[in-house]
């Protein structure tokens, strides 16, 4: 279990934010199957920008990794990143403060 402390003001937003990351995983996998690296880059970029603000620096790291891997067109790193994100989302436990 990974425990993350999040700003209480954001409590209402967090379930939606995490659901969107689950969707991102599915989107990245679909884009990878089509070889659409630019689409993956955009998702990674967006994840990188928002993760830290919501209190999830790990999501920002994953996003940055996805963005870099998409630019390098490295499918293995992209698969690895989505796998790490899926695992993280399954484990994360939120404490609002």
């Amino acid at each position, binding site marked *: 279990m990974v425990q993350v402390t999040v*700003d209480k003001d954001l409590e209402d937003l967090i379930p939606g934010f995490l659901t969107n990351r689950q969707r991102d995983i599915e989107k990245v996998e679909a884009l990878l199957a089509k070889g659409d690296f630019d689409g993956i880059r955009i998702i990674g970029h*967006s994840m*990188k920008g928002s993760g830290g*603000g919501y209190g999830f620096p790990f999501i920002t790291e994953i996003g940055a990794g996805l963005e870099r891997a998409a630019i390098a067109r490295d499918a293995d790193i992209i698969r690895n990143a989505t796998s790490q994100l899926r695992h993280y989302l399954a484990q994360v436990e939120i404490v609002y403060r």
Partner: protein
Amino acid sequence: MGINDTSTPYRVLIVDDDSDMVALLSTWLKASGFSVITATSGDEALTRLGMSRPHCVLTDLYMEGMDGMTLLGRIHASNPLMPVIMLSGQAGIPEAMKAMHLGIAAFLTKPVEKETLLANVSRALRLSSDISEARPKFGAGIIYRSTAMAELLEKAELLADSDITVFISGQTGTGKEVLAKAIHEASPRRDKPFIGVNCGAIPEQLLESELFGHERGAFTGALTRHEGLLQAANGGTLFLDEIGDMPLGLQVKLLRVLQDFEVRPVGSTRSVPVNVRVISATHQDLADAVKRGEFREDLYYRLNVVPLHMPSLAERREDIPALLDYFLDRVAQKRNAKKKRFAPEALEYLLAAPWPGNVRQLMNVVELCTTLTKTDIIPLSMAKSALREEPAGIQTLKVAKDAFERNYLIGVLRITNGHVANAARIAGRNRTEFYKLLAQHHLNAAEFRKGGAAEGDEPESSDGDVAEDPADEQRDV
């Protein structure tokens, strides 16, 4: 923060095509007391900007369609002083440099921290306008509903706090001086004099003396030293109305004052430092006057730092009902009489009228209609007749002559510090004739003597004397 407790919250427009970012930034800002408007594209942001008139824009740099940099350019094309904060996930130095060069308030890197974001929004608002609760509403007496006026006043309010030189264009009767006064009253100079002078109403030699002052003996009749309006307005604001009528010789002198902030009175070898904010105005096309060689190009650029355009009444027709109502109310109060109103068809007629004389003409029409109508309701026939009789800004020869004579008398009284014998000598009249003229114009020479009201602390235009903006007698445009 100091911002979140204002009674009227500051509106921030968030522009980002990432809904999670929009939700995050909105939550932070709302929790800190800001009002938030959101847009998910540059195009939507431009629409929201016109409708909601935010105080600050927070935009992503990279977006589908219009990017943040293009949006910044579009915003500043119509709102040059709107603070824009840019957010980017890729903090490339060239982009940041370019954005800073384009006048951005802050460039923040994603992921951004809450404190950093709020501090930058507060700073941007503080730099662009006074967020003090104590300050009265900008242009509180100005009557309007139109977007054109709202946008103008918003822009004017943003620059009131600074010492930026403002240039107001607009037709006769639109209320350019009213706007200049509103800017002065919202500025840190509000406790110092606001002095208006109509550059077109005073002969060249008098105007030179009026503005720059003169030494004793500087010219025939200059028996005493005269301070001049630039010195009288020290610490405050000098409103130069009809600047396009200023003679070329004086334009050079004024340019020197604006460059060096020093004034040299006529006949003096000594320059005196002055701290004056200059707001100028004209109904003329000054750029055209520059092309024709009638106005100095260097002075034009020195004055035209921030241009503001007063819309004509025809461009703000939605304000006509409110203006009519206001003037009807004012007339009733002034005469201690029951408030009259226009019949619906009269109102309809007035709404569609061309109004070449603008708010001044409208005010005169209300005066005329209320005077000549015996009943409580002003009929269409009266409205039509009043509009026909009110010749839209063109005065009769007698009215124009009277106005000139009064301005002239005020000018010589100022120059002579209210010394009637000297003033009469300059005017080429004997003292008895001069006294008669003063009486005709209800002028009292004593008020122009040292320590009198005319030496700097006089409300220069309140009695319709030196400043002659067509709408200067009213607080409402």
